[in-house]
């Protein structure tokens, strides 16, 4: 017997939807029994009390004027006022470069540059000293100027021969880090060396994060590759490094760098305290980074190596072109998590007599005029760190999304 079936209709049916009226939703989820009703009411009372208390404090009692009054001290510490243009110049250079890259490539970099410029404009509206607000508007303008230049470069070169511009762009980005550090620190002559480098407030947190992130990622990649090396000596050294560093709390490494080196090394060859702290946090973070990257390396199937070898790539090219790009993208969340942890860990510098943001806020408290403003300061510090950490996480999510194109 043979049967043939005709589809009843080619029209697609809509998926079933279920809409529950509000009252029934409440009854089902919040007041399903006497006990649940009591829990609901008690929780609601607790939430209202907390929100009311917090709101009252924030609006009525808090002395927020402590922040603008001490803003310079918190952000750049004892950096001399007549040299502050160097900090702004560094910021402007970054703004210009971001704007340029955004204009040239569009996409994510453009969005980041735009958000940065908007943030500068929003800050300029807040009641800071007039000069600061002027500088902030200048920062936004530098992003805009860079963007214009980037668009111009894109327009002028038009079609294909844009590779050399990209090369220059990348070179300038890489060079901007040492140049920025030199500009901030000074070399003498027209750029006098700034004294008391350990009292730069939030600038130290930022520098520690930039240096730590910039160095610990490449170092971590090398360590991860080393740990998977076929050469026993390299494998042993890398494994020992990673396991040793990961087994020790960062704070004790920082104490070692600050106190033990003080005892062991004579003054003239001992690097400055801040540099020691940055080296320490880089060493610490690179061990974690190495394990994150190694996780990514292990996720790459053997077939990828075989395919690369089979088309004639050697080991180094296989690693650089095939394995690392896939491994790193697989562990972006873990790597960015490590970046965020590193940034927050820079507050531990405070324990070794470095006046970073958290530590310098205590010197504000010791000022009689601002006694008792501890909550205001800590809320401010928390918000600053949260905004920057959340930005990193948001950027990483966008990068993941973009790189995910065509992935299964």
């Amino acid at each position, binding site marked *: 017997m043979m049967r043939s079936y005709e589809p009843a209709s080619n029209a697609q049916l809509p998926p079933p939807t279920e809409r529950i009226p509000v009252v029934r939703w409440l009854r089902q989820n919040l007041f399903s029994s006497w006990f649940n009703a009591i829990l609901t009411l008690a929780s609601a009372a607790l939430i209202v009390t907390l929100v009311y208390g917090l709101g009252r404090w924030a609006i009525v009692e808090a002395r927020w004027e402590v922040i603008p009054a001490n803003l310079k001290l918190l952000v750049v510490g004892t950096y001399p006022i007549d040299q502050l243009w160097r900090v702004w110049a560094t910021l402007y250079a970054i703004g210009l470069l971001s704007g340029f890259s955004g204009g040239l490539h569009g996409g994510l970099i453009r969005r980041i540059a735009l958000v940065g410029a908007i943030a500068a404009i929003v800050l300029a509206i807040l009641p800071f000293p007039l000069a600061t607000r002027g500088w902030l508007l200048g920062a936004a303008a530098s992003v805009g100027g860079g963007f214009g230049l980037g668009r111009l470069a894109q327009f002028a070169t038009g079609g294909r021969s844009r590779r050399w511009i990209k090369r220059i762009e990348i070179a300038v980005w890489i060079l901007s880090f040492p140049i920025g550090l030199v500009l901030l620190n000074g070399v003498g002559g027209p750029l006098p060396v700034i004294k008391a480098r350990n009292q730069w407030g939030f600038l130290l947190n930022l520098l520690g994060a930039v240096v730590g992130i910039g160095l610990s990622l490449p170092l971590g990649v090398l360590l991860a590759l080393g740990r998977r090396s076929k050469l026993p000596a390299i494998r042993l050294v890398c494994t020992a490094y990673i396991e040793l560093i990961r087994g020790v709390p960062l704070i004790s490494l920082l104490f070692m760098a600050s106190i033990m080196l003080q005892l062991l090394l004579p003054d003239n060859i001992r690097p400055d305290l801040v540099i020691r702290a940055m080296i320490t946090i880089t060493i610490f973070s690179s061990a974690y980074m190495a394990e994150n990257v190694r996780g990514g390396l292990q996720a790459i199937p053997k077939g990828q190596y075989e395919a690369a070898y089979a*088309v004639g790539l050697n080991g180094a*090219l296989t690693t650089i072109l095939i394995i690392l790009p896939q491994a790193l993208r697989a562990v972006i969340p873990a790597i960015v998590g490590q970046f965020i942890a590193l940034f927050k860990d820079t507050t531990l510098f405070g324990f070794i007599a470095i006046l970073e943001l958290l530590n310098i806020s205590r010197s504000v408290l010791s000022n009689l005029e601002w006694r008792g403003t501890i909550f205001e300061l800590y809320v401010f510090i928390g918000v600053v760190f949260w905004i920057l950490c959340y930005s990193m996480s948001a950027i990483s999510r966008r990068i993941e999304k973009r790189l995910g194109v065509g*992935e299964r």
Partner: protein
Amino acid sequence: MSVKPDEGIIICRDVHKWFGDFHVLRGISLTVQKGEVVVICGPSGSGKSTFIRTINRLEEHQRGQIIVDGVELTNDLRNIETIRRDVGMVFQQFNLFPHLTVRQNITLAPVWVLKMKRAEADAVAMQLLERVGIPEQADKFPGQLSGGQQQRVVIARALAMNPQIMLFDEPTSALDPEMIKEVLDVMKELAHSGMTMIVVTHEMGFAREVADRIIFFDFGQLIEENTPEEFFHNPQHERTKLFLSQILT
């Protein structure tokens, strides 16, 4: 090295290999002439995949001699790289690079290994994609392609290095039946163009139509070798008869 190329483009003499204690290859001797199409079949676990993977040194042989295009495979990395440049390979699981587009998959090795200009490599890639019938997929990522299309990209990627020899390791085993034909068609065209090919496959139709020689593997040994005509109609070995009776019904 005193090997004349006209003795055969691939010469294997008494090749042995062990995985731990397991003796996978037990003395394989085989000579393949330039332009020949050799099909290797046999039950799974018989060592046929392992054997063709020794030819471009994805597996190391532990005894015997393998000479490819006049170069002997030893531990010398330069020899290995020379041979890999000359030998293309197609895998059962495709192994395309998922982070690169189809075009980039094909141009990668010519640009980095042969130092070809990018524009030239792009032109070669487009030609090859025409040849395997999917030029419109050039800017997609492998994950957006069907299995049959992916396998054709793999073939194009291998051909971009202008190899002397192509190895196929069960190229259709991971494909849906509807897609097997499109890959086999590309392979047939390649065989007719004079490419030297060694193909591990269970596609007996392909073997009958294209192969110059069929080789039957069992327990790491080469137990029968014949023309397709003889192999299918007049198998010599009991094991071969059994295998054919199972696979052809």
